[in-house]
C-alpha cells in the first residue's frame, strides 16, 4: 500500500495526468466526506474538495513524504474546510450587521428557532441535535471527533493529521464526547 502510494506520488511529481486522475478517483469520496462533515452543505463540501485536489496538483512537487499522502490529503481538507467555514461565518456576521443597519431590505439574519428541545426527541431529530452541537465544538475537537466517528480513522491517523500525539487526540476526543453527551443526554428517549 505504501509502495503504491509512493509510486503514485512519483508519477504525480513527474506530471502524469493519468496519475492525477487516479488520485482524484481514489480519494474523492474521502476528501468530500471529510469536508462535508465539517461544513454540512454539499456545495461547500464540493468546493473544498475541488480546491484540495487543485492544491495537490500545484504543490505535489514540494511534497517530501514526511507524512503519508492520505494524511496530507486529510490535513489539506480539514484546514481548507475550517478556513471556508470561518469565511462563511464572517460573511454571515457582516450580512447580519448590514441588515441591521438597513443597507438593504432583505432579512439576512436567520429567523429564531422556536423549536422546544422536547420537540427534538425522536430518531433523525436527535441526530440533527448532535450535528448542531458538533458544529459548536472548538475546531480541534471537532476535527478529531468527525475523523474518528464519521471517517473511522484510528487514533494514530488522527494524530498524524492534526500533527499531535495520540494522548492529545485522546484528550480532544474525551472533551468532545463529554461536551456532546452533556447536551444530548437530556434529550435521549429513556433518560
Amino acid at each position, binding site marked *: 500500500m505504501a509502495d503504491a502510494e509512493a509510486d503514485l506520488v512519483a508519477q504525480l511529481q513527474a506530471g502524469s495526468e493519468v496519475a492525477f*486522475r487516479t488520485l*482524484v*478517483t481514489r480519494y*474523492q*469520496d474521502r476528501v*468530500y*466526506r471529510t469536508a*462535508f*462533515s465539517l461544513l454540512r452543505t*454539499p456545495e461547500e*463540501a*464540493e468546493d473544498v*474538495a*475541488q*480546491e484540495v*485536489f*487543485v*492544491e495537490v*496538483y*500545484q*504543490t505535489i512537487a514540494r511534497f517530501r513524504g514526511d507524512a503519508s499522502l492520505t494524511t496530507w490529503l486529510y490535513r489539506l481538507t480539514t484546514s481548507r474546510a475550517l478556513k471556508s467555514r470561518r469565511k462563511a461565518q464572517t460573511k454571515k456576521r457582516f450580512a447580519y450587521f448590514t441588515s441591521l443597519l438597513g443597507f438593504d431590505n432583505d432579512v439576512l439574519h436567520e429567523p429564531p428557532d422556536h423549536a422546544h428541545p422536547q420537540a427534538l426527541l425522536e430518531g433523525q431529530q*436527535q*441526530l440533527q441535535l*448532535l*450535528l448542531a452541537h458538533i458544529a459548536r465544538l472548538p475546531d480541534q475537537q471537532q476535527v478529531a471527533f*468527525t475523523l474518528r*466517528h*464519521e*471517517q*473511522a480513522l484510528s487514533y494514530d491517523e488522527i494524530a498524524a493529521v492534526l500533527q499531535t500525539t495520540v494522548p492529545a487526540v485522546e484528550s480532544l476526543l474525551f472533551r468532545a464526547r463529554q461536551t456532546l*453527551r452533556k447536551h*444530548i*443526554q437530556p434529550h*435521549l*428517549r*429513556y*433518560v
Partner: protein
Amino acid sequence: MSDSAFRPTPEQEWEDLVRQLHDQAQGQPRPFFYNRVSARLAGRPTTPGRAVPVWMRRPAYAALLGVIMLVLSGDVGALRPAPAATPATAPAAASPLRSHPQ
C-alpha cells in the same frame, strides 16, 4: 410487566446515535467530479505562487502603500514646493561662497 429490561441504557443510546452519525457520513460528490476539478485547474495559473499579492494589484492600495513608505522614509519634504529663496531665508548651503569668520 415492566419493560425496563428492553430499554437501552444511556450508554447504548449514545453508541446508537454515534453509529447513526457514521452511517449518514457516506455521501459522494456529484458525478464527473474529475472533470470539474480539471476545469478548475485549467482556469488557474500554472505556477502556484503569485509574484504580487492580490491586494497589491489594486491601484488604491498600491498608491497608499507608496505614500506610507514615503512618509516613513522622511522624504515627504521632497513633495512640498520649494519656497522662493531670499537672502534672509536662504540656507547657508545655498550660498557656498559666503566667507566664514576665521
